[in-house]
């Protein structure tokens, strides 16, 4: 596959979740992304249409890691065009990979990396203290969030996914396991907790003009940890919000 086609697939993969539907989920996005290489492989219109429709079936995985499956599928289609494998094998492989890849992606990116980047940015702002909204530079915070998140998480995974998926299809699992995604998740989470505690400590120091606020801040923190252990985040927020509101309205004047 020429680099230009690979790059085309990479760019199209940004549309992976387009027309997301409950019936076949990411089928439109996936098909749209793989079309450039299908066009190169199959010059016969009938065969091309058949391959496209074969891919227009149920597919769902993590939007960034889907690029790996796009690369592997491109390689599989190549083998199909040489009559080495059947169409069912391509679709079965594609769908069997989608599940665990989604599990890795959801845990590593949505559940850990994105949350961690949010923590970093909020931390940048909160470390300016109680008056952060007047003192912090908005653009440094916002732009560094976008740059750090995308340059480490989004863009490399999408591009290298297609590249390695296509060029190293059979060894892709080894390559992913070298990354040790679960250990990475653990490290990010531990670092996240440490950072949150540091941020809370320094932020509460800035509240020290009013000792009452410091106490209420730490009470809120502890109670929210305890409530969210048993209940959902919505319940935690509503409960604590009402509690704080009543406290400030009825008690504190």
């Amino acid at each position: 596959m020429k680099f230009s086609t690979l790059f085309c697939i990479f760019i199209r993969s940004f549309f992976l979740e387009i027309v997301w539907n409950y019936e076949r989920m990411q089928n439109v996005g996936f098909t749209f992304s793989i079309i450039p290489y299908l066009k190169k492989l199959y010059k016969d219109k009938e065969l091309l249409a058949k391959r496209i429709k074969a891919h227009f079936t149920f597919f769902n995985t993590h939007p960034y890691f889907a690029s790996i499956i796009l690369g592997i599928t491109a390689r599989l289609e190549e083998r199909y065009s040489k009559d080495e494998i059947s169409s069912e094998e391509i679709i079965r492989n594609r769908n069997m990979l989608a599940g665990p890849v989604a599990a890795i992606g959801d845990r590593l990116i949505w559940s850990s990396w994105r949350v961690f980047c949010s923590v970093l940015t909020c931390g940048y702002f909160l470390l300016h203290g109680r008056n952060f909204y007047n003192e912090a530079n908005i653009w440094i915070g916002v732009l560094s969030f976008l740059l750090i998140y995308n340059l480490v998480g989004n863009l490399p995974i999408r591009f290298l996914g297609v590249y390695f998926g296509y060029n190293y299809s059979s060894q892709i699992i080894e390559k992913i396991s070298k990354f040790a995604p679960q250990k990475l998740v653990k490290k990010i989470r531990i670092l996240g907790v440490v950072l949150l505690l540091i941020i809370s400590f320094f932020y509460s120091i800035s509240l020290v003009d009013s000792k009452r606020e410091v106490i209420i801040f730490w009470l809120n923190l502890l109670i929210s940890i305890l409530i969210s252990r048993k209940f959902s985040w919505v319940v935690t927020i509503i409960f604590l919000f009402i509690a704080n509101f009543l406290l400030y309205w009825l008690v504190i004047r």
Partner: protein
Amino acid sequence: MSYIIRIDDRLLHGQVIEGWIKPLKIEKLVVSSDIVYCDSLQKNLYLISVPENIELECLSLELTAEKISAGKFDKIKTLVLISSLKDLYELVLKIRKIFPDYKLPPVNVGGIRHTEGRVQIYKALFLSLEEIQIIKKLEQLGITLEYYVLPEDPRVLINEKISQIEEIIERKLGYG
């Protein structure tokens, strides 16, 4: 019994990890599928997609039947993943061969997705006429099937809706 059997044609995926392990305090995952059992690439992929403190076993239907009948999954909270109603039927037959009176807990039908020939019944449940026949056979074997996607969702008892579902499928496929 400390194990739950879940039918999900995507077997192990994000929602199972994020939405099932924590609420039910699952400590062990069993992927029960003859296809995965024979595919070392799949097995290795599952091993890296599972969180560190969760035990994972990839077994064939025969081995799963043996372990269930021997009570091997009764020690810690286990989630047994099966990819289709057909596989569940085979599994039940194998279990009953070893242990004829074995009573299985209610089976969770968590996700059977769209392919040609299947009709949408619920948000994550698409069934074909062939599968309705399998459900009838499972009912005769005394298996309870409950549809719910996440543990906190309301449970739909499929056993009570068999004829309703059959009607929907026949109607949507144009059988009159």
